């Protein structure tokens, strides 16, 4: 290992590393993303290592454990060979067979292949899996090509060549021009044009400037930043160095939440590797540029994902937002000009420099360019990370990529943009993923969470869930957010408990508007979105709760009761035995009854009954 001293040197190293990797060995790619780790992909990987050693076939097989591929539902995932045979739900017991087939050439293992549920046919190659077909992978594609712990892998696919291009023949102004022309917008949620932010930061007065990578991803069910920082940390680092060059910064920070231990570790290893290679530190690639990155761990406050709160937290103070009357690009970290961008935004920068602004500008819609990684979760068949071009409709994502509802249930709504995003009904699924379009409809792209809800979800209950989250995670500094959200929650809770009054609806709207308009930071300004958007699109559910004291989806416990259908009950006593409260009476072979006084609506009997005799009203 030696320091890379010039752009030419970098090119020759990259070429050598790429040639080393093109040696005819069979490549086994095991997904090591968080989803696959939970389904024990590391057992699979170590079994591969062990068996390769036992069988003495080190010269024929190469194992690569990568970051997240996206299709978490099917983990652990393994791709075999250059043609990418797609095996899913791989267990350590299957490794022997896979090695046998791949080393001896040809043949696929039928039982490990993915079965397309809509056609019932098996799919052999990754490219033919319907989940991947509607996607436009760029960052997630890189995730599949590199081992996050190996800078050599990243160099072999042309990594850091964008940096070399910038340092050898691009003035900072030209870099900013290129990023502005590409139309890249902040992918952390706000969608602020990145080029404009960089230009303002460069123009700001000050010797010392900082670049910060915001990896404090706190939305429930969202893990795209985690997927990138764990899977391809060098892309983020390269993007940050390019940003630092453009802005004139000498120091950078990656603020990553401590709940992502693997992301922290991978980022640390990557930074150290980059230092060893001379890609961080003094005199980068012989250009005289000086830049280094520190890793700072966040303590798990949702609000620290807000840029001003993040900077206060980086300074070592309590993470609370400060007013944005002076933009962070002028007075940010330690009152110095600072550019804060999200992980995904930084990771997109090298590709833009490498392929040019017009390539990036060619993807997406008129005002939202490029791709967006979304975390598809909830009641859909295929969950995981998906990367789509802006402009892809919600329906494509939910139905083509997500594969439709679980157990054939009808999908009712999607919640986009995390807790402070909004719910959109099924009738609006033809809307494209686009910053401005979703904003207009009362939701937002946000960080990229996409929670799908089917007909079993009660929208009032959903609003209550998100408000509870926001109440806990509000920093409590300003009045509208702290008191407003807690009052919103108080009212919504009353509605779910059957204590709703008709005047609550205008009150929710009025208060929601106040919180939106008057709060201090972006978190407060978007906090009422779950209530406002459900009020907007699912007013009938609120009305049913308030006027008829009825929960149409059968979720709100105070408004439902369980009963046994005498036609269907055969007196098997299954429900009677499982009821923890002894609320079910009856003799064997006789119709049972539920005592509504004792019943606490836990729903255990519902799952115990084999005949569907227990119903919710």
């Amino acid at each position: 290992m030696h320091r890379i001293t010039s752009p030419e040197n970098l090119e020759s190293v990259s070429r050598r590393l790429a040639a080393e990797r093109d040696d005819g060995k069979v490549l086994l790619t095991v997904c090591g993303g968080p989803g696959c780790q939970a389904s024990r992909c590391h057992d699979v990987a170590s079994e591969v290592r062990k068996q390769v050693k036992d069988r003495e076939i080190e010269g024929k097989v190469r194992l690569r454990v990568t970051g997240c591929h996206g299709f978490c539902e099917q983990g652990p995932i393994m791709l075999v060979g250059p043609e990418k045979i797609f095996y899913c739900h791989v267990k350590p017991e299957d490794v022997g067979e896979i090695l046998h087939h791949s080393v001896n050439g040809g043949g696929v293992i039928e039982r490990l292949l993915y079965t397309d549920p809509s056609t019932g046919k098996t799919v052999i190659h990754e490219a033919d899996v319907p989940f991947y077909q509607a996607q436009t992978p760029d960052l997630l594609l890189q995730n599949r090509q590199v081992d996050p712990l190996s800078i050599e892998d990243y160099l072999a696919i042309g990594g850091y060549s964008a940096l070399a291009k910038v340092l050898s023949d691009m003035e900072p102004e030209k870099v900013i021009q290129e990023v502005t022309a590409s139309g890249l917008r902040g992918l952390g949620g706000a969608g602020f044009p990145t080029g404009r932010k960089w230009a303002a930061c460069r123009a700001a007065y000050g010797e010392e400037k900082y670049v910060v990578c915001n990896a404090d991803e706190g939305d429930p069910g969202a893990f795209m930043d985690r997927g990138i920082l764990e899977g391809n940390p060098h892309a983020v680092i390269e993007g940050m160095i390019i940003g630092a060059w453009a802005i004139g910064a000498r120091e950078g920070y990656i603020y990553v939440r401590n709940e992502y231990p693997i992301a922290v570790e991978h980022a640390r290893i990557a930074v150290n590797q980059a230092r060893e290679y001379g890609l961080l530190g003094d005199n980068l690639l012989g250009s005289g540029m000086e830049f280094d990155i520190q890793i700072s761990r966040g303590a798990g406050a949702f609000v620290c994902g807000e840029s001003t709160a993040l900077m206060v937290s980086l300074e070592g103070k309590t993470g609370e937002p400060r007013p944005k009357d002076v933009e962070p690009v002028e007075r940010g970290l330690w009152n110095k000009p600072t550019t804060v961008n999200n992980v995904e935004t930084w990771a997109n920068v090298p590709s833009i420099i490498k392929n040019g602004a017009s390539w990036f500008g060619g993807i997406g819609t008129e005002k939202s360019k490029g791709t967006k990684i979304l975390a598809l979760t909830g009641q859909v068949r295929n969950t995981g990370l998906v990367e789509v071009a802006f402009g892809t409709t919600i329906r494509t994502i939910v139905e083509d990529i997500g594969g439709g509802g679980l157990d054939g249930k009808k999908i009712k709504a999607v919640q986009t943009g995390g807790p402070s995003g909004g719910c959109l009904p099924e009738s609006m699924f033809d809307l494209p993923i686009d910053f401005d379009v979703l904003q207009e409809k009362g939701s937002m792209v946000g960080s990229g969470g996409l929670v799908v809800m089917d007909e079993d979800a009660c929208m009032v209950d959903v609003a209550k869930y998100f408000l509870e989250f926001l109440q806990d995670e509000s920093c409590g500094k300003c009045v509208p957010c702290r008191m407003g959200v807690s009052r919103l929650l108080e009212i919504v809770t009353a509605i779910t408990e059957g204590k709703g009054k008709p005047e609550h609806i205008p009150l929710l709207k009025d208060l929601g508007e106040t919180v939106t308009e008057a709060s201090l930071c972006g978190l407060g300004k978007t906090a009422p979105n779950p209530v406002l958007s459900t009020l907007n699109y699912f007013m009938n559910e609120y009305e049913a709760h308030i006027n008829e004291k009825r929960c149409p989806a059968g979720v709100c416990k105070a408004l439902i009761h369980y009963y046994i259908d005498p036609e269907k009950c055969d007196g098997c006593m299954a429900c009677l035995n499982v009821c923890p409260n002894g609320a079910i009476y009856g003799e064997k072979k006789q119709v049972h009854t539920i005592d509504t006084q004792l019943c606490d609506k836990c729903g255990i009997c519902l799952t115990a009954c084999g005949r569907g005799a227990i119903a919710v009203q």
Partner: protein
Amino acid sequence: MNQYVTLTIDGSKVSTPKGSSVLDAALRYGICIPHLCYLPTISESGACRICIVENIVNGESIITSSCTLVAKEGMVIRANSEKIRKLRKNIAELLVAQAPNSRAIQDIAVKCGVREVRYPFRHDDCILCGRCVRVCQDLYQARAIGFIGRGSQRYVGFPFDERPDFCKRCWACIDLCLMKETPCDGPMEIGQEYLCGKCESTTMAPQFDSGDCIRCEMGKGFGCTRHNM
């Protein structure tokens, strides 16, 4: 070099030293933007949001707290628009519902137009305006008290809930507390959530009027008496 900047607040041109806030500028000219957590000479936090104003930038209105907004040459501020009055009223309503037992908060609520409170009273002892924390930190440099916890669990307390030696017992925190003002003995029970508004004239004593009030339109709507509390 020009050490003053000129800006427009509700149509009147005012000039103020460079670097001062819009709220400072307005108060200096007797334009009474109501405020709660703001204290002169102590760092502003923008927490209570009572002093919000509309800052018109390129025809677009940005709502922000005037105490944290630094005055700039040519700024156009609207401090008394219908939208602002409505937001202020709603915020004051939240405050008075949280802590109805302080005359300072009752007064500000009544002045912002709150008569009926739509939320059940919570009878809290603190609205977390942070005046005590900031005076301890900025003026007396003691940092003996601070905010603990977050969100609805947030409260003001000593480090590890024990009075530290470096607390100088100056009681500035108590002096500045809004909650120490004895409440009006009007209807303040749970279930009777409204403010009579009858006693506002007596609490806002005329001796606080410094004499340079221009009787602005703003004050008419707000019932201003140049009271700093």
